[in-house]
């Protein structure tokens, strides 16, 4: 009998609630010109960062993020029991090559842009279950590597519609520990794959919104909590229109989150940066969590937050064959205790 499950989709960390003891974020130049610039640990001067390819630059961001997290916690890679990581590229090569350099036992996960809370959910379960003392969770994305894989070459002169989103160049992650100082992960709500039939890869916010709304609703039902129990409710990368849709969908279900709700995709870039609807990518919720939200928790401005990273789980092949975009969202509740 599973004792730590409540409701249909949520687990509670009670025995040994994992703490976020360290964090780090690296972003690209464009993100470094946005409104959250001061919260990031490192800002690249250009997309290549002196490497031979964009893929290699993304890999280096991943590795340096890991090293920064470890340095802050005064830990060596050999102290870490598991690395949970993911990215957007085929065969998650960034995470895997990063794991090769770090030499930490590794589970590679694919959840598209939902990777950040996906890795944290599983890492937290490892710690609460007593299987690990330190788990590293990192995700990354890069505008240039994602663009070439999912869309057109960069120099191609095509117009982007108003609903298009801009993939964040960056890497972010956290260290979960069984002991130490830091906010606790108290709940994890695992999302279902939801598909309301949106096919437009230039309108990912609309494709992912039903998944986000479904997971948030499941979290409220399972825990008996409501929006008023959180200082802030955060979604991953739904951007401008997805954010509005989420508010509306949840209102229909009887939950009004509007006054305490942000979407990471709306936070990273300013209006003047001409990114259309907003930001997307694995790094979107990763750098906002690791850079901005956890800093606000450290400063005592936020005490309890709910964050749901959202992922669009299509591939270029499924899209070309006319399939719609299946999506997912995983939510975690983070609380500052004591």
């Amino acid at each position, binding site marked *: 009998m599973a004792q730590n499950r409540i409701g249909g989709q949520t687990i509670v960390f009670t025995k040994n609630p994992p703490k976020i003891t360290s964090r780090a974020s690296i972003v690209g130049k464009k993100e470094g010109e946005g409104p959250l610039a001061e919260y990031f640990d490192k800002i690249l001067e250009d997309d290549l960062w002196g490497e031979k390819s964009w893929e290699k630059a993304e890999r280096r961001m991943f590795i340096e993020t890991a090293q920064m997290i470890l340095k802050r916690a005064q830990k060596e890679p050999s102290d870490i029991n598991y690395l949970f990581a993911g990215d957007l590229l085929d065969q998650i090569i960034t995470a895997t090559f990063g794991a090769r350099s770090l030499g930490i036992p590794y589970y590679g996960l694919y959840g598209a842009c939902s990777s950040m809370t996906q890795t944290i959910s599983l890492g937290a379960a490892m710690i609460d279950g007593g299987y690990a003392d330190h788990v590293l969770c990192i995700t990354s994305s890069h505008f240039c590597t994602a663009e070439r894989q999912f869309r057109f070459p960069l120099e191609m002169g095509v117009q982007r519609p108003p609903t298009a989103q801009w993939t964040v160049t960056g890497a972010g992650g956290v260290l979960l520990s069984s002991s130490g100082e830091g906010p606790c992960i108290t709940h994890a709500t695992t999302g279902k794959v939801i598909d309301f039939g*949106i096919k437009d890869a230039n309108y990912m916010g609309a494709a992912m919104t039903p998944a986000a709304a479904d997971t948030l609703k499941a979290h409220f039902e399972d825990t008996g909590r409501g929006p008023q129990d959180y200082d802030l409710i955060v979604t991953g990368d739904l951007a401008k229109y997805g954010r509005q849709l989420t508010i509306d969908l949840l209102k229909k279900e009887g939950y009004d989150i509007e006054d305490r709700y942000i979407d990471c995709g709306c936070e990273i870039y300013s209006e003047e940066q001409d990114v259309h609807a907003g930001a997307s990518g694995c790094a979107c919720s990763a750098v906002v969590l690791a850079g901005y939200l956890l800093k606000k928790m450290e400063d005592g401005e936020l005490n309890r937050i709910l964050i749901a990273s959202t992922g669009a789980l299509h591939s270029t092949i499924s899209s070309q064959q006319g399939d719609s975009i299946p999506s997912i969202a995983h939510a975690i509740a983070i609380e500052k205790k004591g």
Partner: protein
Amino acid sequence: MESLDVKQKKINEDYQKYANSITPRSNIITNCIMAFLVGGLICTIGQVISNIAKNYYNMNTEEASATTSISLILIAAILTGLGLYEKIGKRAGAGSVVPITGFSNSIVSPAMEHKREGYVMGIGAKMFSIAGPVLVYGVSASVIVGLINYFFIK
């Protein structure tokens, strides 16, 4: 089971309709005007090149049109390499995609993008990934038109 599918279909349709209703449309009038102006400008430049070739280099019409095509392709390839063509394309849309310069852009941009995967499997294999379908159906269409012309019109 079937009724469930029907129900979900209804939910999907309502949701899609609603999701589309809250987004702004691309501005068709501005886009058309920009496409008209830029497309027209590219064609005017082509005409200038053609006239120069005819009047100053004594080329006949066929030679002049080949020179025009080659020159426009070269200019677009250089602009693509400098990262300027995508900036033009962002504003001009179809105005810079449809002329031969857009064709040049669609070949040069994947070639640049895939250089790091090597000269054979990168540049060689990916260069025509966007222009390829245009070539296939362009050539096929011209064969069909040619056959019709040969057998029925002469």
